[in-house]
């Protein structure tokens, strides 16, 4: 993975229509973004569609990226993740009968968690998540990583949706306070 500064530079070049820079940006970030959306969508074909749409959006809106507000990889991952969440939310509301058969979802990567980069921000976030009650930790992380809705979390925790809503809200406010914001 390139450094954040290199990614910022590539995004700036992409904003000017530099196709070579876009190819390098894709090469440097595709596996991370694909990992994020595949966890949420759990279907190879859907994840590929979402990744494709996400990169087209990145190509078109690179000029809107503001390095003062967010890190390049988080900005790109948010685009992909939001798209993935939109897709799963819509899918549970329409009939899913005519789906092609499920494809194999690749198992988690050979790159072990322990060896991945952990920034100071991540350590602080984990610290704050770790201060929530165990059930709330699970709630927040299932929501973030697996893209579960309030309703799905309510089913998992066997709790009314309104309670989940309150828990989520309380948890987010606790995290905000813990981060000192």
């Amino acid at each position: 993975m390139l450094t954040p500064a290199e990614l910022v530079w590539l995004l700036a070049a992409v904003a000017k229509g530099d196709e070579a820079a876009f190819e390098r940006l894709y090469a440097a970030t595709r596996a991370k973004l694909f990992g994020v959306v595949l966890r949420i969508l759990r279907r190879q074909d859907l994840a590929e569609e979402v990744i494709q749409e996400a990169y087209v959006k990145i190509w078109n809106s690179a000029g809107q990226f503001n390095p003062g507000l967010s890190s390049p990889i988080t900005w790109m991952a948010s685009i992909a993740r939001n798209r993935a969440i939109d897709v799963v939310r819509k899918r549970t509301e329409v009939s899913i009968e005519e789906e092609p058969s499920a494809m194999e979802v690749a198992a988690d990567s050979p790159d072990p968690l322990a060896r991945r980069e952990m920034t100071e921000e991540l350590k602080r976030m984990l610290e704050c998540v770790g201060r929530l009650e165990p059930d709330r930790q699970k709630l927040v992380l299932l929501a973030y990583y697996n893209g579960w809705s309030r309703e799905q979390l309510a089913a998992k925790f066997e709790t009314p949706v309104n309670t989940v809503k309150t828990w989520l809200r309380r948890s987010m406010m606790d995290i905000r306070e813990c981060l000192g914001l």
Partner: protein
Amino acid sequence: MAYSEDHIALAAEYALGTLDADKRAQVETMMSVDKDFTAIVEAWQQRLGVLNQMVGPIEPKPEVWDRIKAAIGHSETQSPLLLPDAPPPEPVAPADAPPAAPVDTSNVVRLSAQARRWRNVATFTAAIAAALVAMIATQLYAPDRLPDGLRPKVRTQVVEVKTEVPPTPSAQYVALLQKDSASPAFILTVDGTTRNFTVRRVGATPERGKSFELWLVSEKLQRPRSLGVIGGDDFTTRPVLESYDPDTVNEATYAVTIEPEGGSPTGVATGPIVFTGKLIEAVPPAAPAPAR
């Protein structure tokens, strides 16, 4: 405008991803009329986005790139396009250019009156936008406070569940072993399936002639159990946790003590506890979502 806790919670939940399709669309509407609200949502996305560092990279198929290239309108085989010279931009009169004709001063009054009128319209539009935002937020968070006509309709949907179970990546547990929240010294990660653990040294160097030893402390066990000496290398990986049941592993406190070089000679901690931490399920297993 000032934002209520309701707005902030809504922005947070949008970033977290727990809202349903209708509420997501409503938040996006709010974002399109309110830049400051957008900034709150983006701040949450940035805050939570660091969690993606924990997600393992997975390579998409090479065809995906071909489709992206096609979608943005270029491909490698394409010959360079010869674009005709762009037409010169329309000459734009500089703002401070001297007026070409003598000024009719009666216009000035009329124009400023017009400007005032537009300003009023702008203020009014902003007020509508703010009211709209407040109304949508109320719909989302406190629908009961709205008159009947504005209350969102309750929708009941029957969802069909397909039982598809792709192989499930296992959960990953993480503990920051630290003295205080500012300075983690070791990061302990445990694989939920194999229960292998890896300890990564981030900030601690043992004194000469001493070793760091990791202990598992649990109410279920009569005394702390040694998980071995750690920190000699940047990474220490061991399968010792296999012999403990998952609940014990998940709920235990992990403690690091300073011991004589090579570890405690007696199997009981002899030195002071310098770092402790508890596991959190940092990356849940990618299980299928329960349907509702």
